């Protein structure tokens, strides 16, 4: 893997929201072209924070962020990178702000300089890819949780990114939709990092899983995806597990 293939290069990142609690503690991490990585870790371990730092939404107080071979420091540097890295927020309510699905999905392409017609075509195409045709005039605010997730994913894919950062993409999805998303994501020829508590999903979509804890990702914590067998001591009816 040559240096040109290094897409995300984080070195020595430290970050905290309040003085008494270090969220990231001298964290280093790399993503190379073609890497398909899963990121797990307990609640509050800083996974979401890490994504936000990669895209310049939060500023680390020390350490460097290098994107596509260039150090990113100022808002302007990140602006360029954001066109090539797509981020799916953990809460889809944070992502959707346009009245209708079509407008929301077309928002990204418009920002990339596409004409309104082109943007609309891209949006319709992307919706179609996610089996969401017919959704274009739905009111985003009134979508169900799972639908919001899918549309959020569409807004990210519509920008045709080279890299995907998805924050718990299967949260709140029913089994069927989860399978659909899993299938779609497997087919993508992109580099990506997926945060998830869902091992099953990760094992199907990623090549390597890193665990985050105490503000660090250490590479020796990498795990190969694996599946689980559950044994229930009791429990009358079948029930679902989240992970």
């Amino acid at each position, binding site marked *: 893997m040559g240096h040109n293939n290094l897409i995300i290069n984080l070195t020595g990142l430290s970050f905290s929201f309040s003085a008494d609690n270090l969220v990231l503690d001298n964290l280093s991490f790399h993503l190379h072209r073609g890497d398909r990585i899963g990121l797990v870790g307990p609640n509050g371990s800083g996974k979401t924070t890490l994504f936000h730092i990669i*895209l310049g*939404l939060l500023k680390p107080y020390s350490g460097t962020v290098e994107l596509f071979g260039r150090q990113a420091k100022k808002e302007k540097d990140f*602006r360029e990178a*954001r066109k090539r890295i797509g981020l799916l*927020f953990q809460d889809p309510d944070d992502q959707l*702000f346009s009245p209708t699905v079509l*407008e929301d999905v077309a928002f*990204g392409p418009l*920002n*990339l300089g596409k004409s309104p017609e082109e943007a609309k075509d891209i949006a319709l195409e992307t919706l179609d890819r996610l089996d969401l045709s017919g959704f274009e005039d739905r009111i985003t605010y009134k979508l169900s949780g799972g639908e919001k997730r899918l549309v959020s994913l569409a807004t990210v894919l519509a920008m045709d990114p080279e890299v995907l950062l998805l924050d718990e993409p299967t949260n709140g999805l029913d089994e069927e939709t989860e399978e659909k998303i899993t299938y779609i994501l497997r087919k993508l020829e992109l580099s990506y990092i997926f945060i998830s508590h869902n091992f099953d999903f990760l094992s199907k979509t990623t090549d390597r899983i890193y665990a985050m804890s105490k503000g660090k990702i250490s590479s020796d914590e990498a795990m190969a995806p694996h599946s689980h067998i559950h044994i229930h001591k009791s429990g009358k009816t079948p029930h679902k597990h989240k992970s």
Partner: protein
Amino acid sequence: MIEEPFSTGNSIIHGLDPRVKIIVVALFSVIVAISSRFLALLPALAISLFLVASAKLPIKKVFYRLLLVNGLILFLWFVLPFTYKGRGLFAIGPFIATKEGILLAGQITVKSNAILLTMIALLSTTPIFSLGHAMGQLHFPNKITHLFLFTFRYIHVIYKEYRKLTNAMRVRGFVPRTNMHTYKSYAYLVGMLLVRSYDRAERIHKAMRCRGFNKKYHSLTQFSLKMEDIFCLSLMSAAITGLAVLQWVITT
């Protein structure tokens, strides 16, 4: 974030009863606002500077605040001296600055900043919630007091939602420019913010009903005047009376 940078501290001023602070600021502002003589205005400015010093506020931050809010004043300095009729002092190109114009601009500047500094020294050194409670005790209309308290409480929640939505716009490559797309996007942002706020308001109302709320607000807070409060109130009343005397009684 919406912060109250001056509200914490351990000066005498920070410890004063918020009711006293509100009364003093109100009296001082009114007297200074309707004064016109430098004979009264300059001592007023001195008093306000003294108050800021007593509150031990970081001078740099206070100065920066003043700079931010003196926009209109600066604008008046560019206009008044050259448009006010009077004795010409000097000229810049075709524009002639009059002495009267400069004096008027100067008078406004001193007035405005004396009041601003007093507000910083007395009001900004009190947590907003204490001011709200003091308003209640000073018999401001009950509805206003509660509207004030609730509004401040929810500014923080809604600001967080606002930040999340702007982040979502940024990661999708949004850069504000002078064009329709930008205005439309901001309008949607505002619309979404209003809708979310409306929903949250309904939930809060429900939460209040669950806790037995029945159209009546009860209060717990009681303030009591301390020696310092009475001393400060007397001292400031005397000073403000002095300003009034300088403005309206003394003849020169």
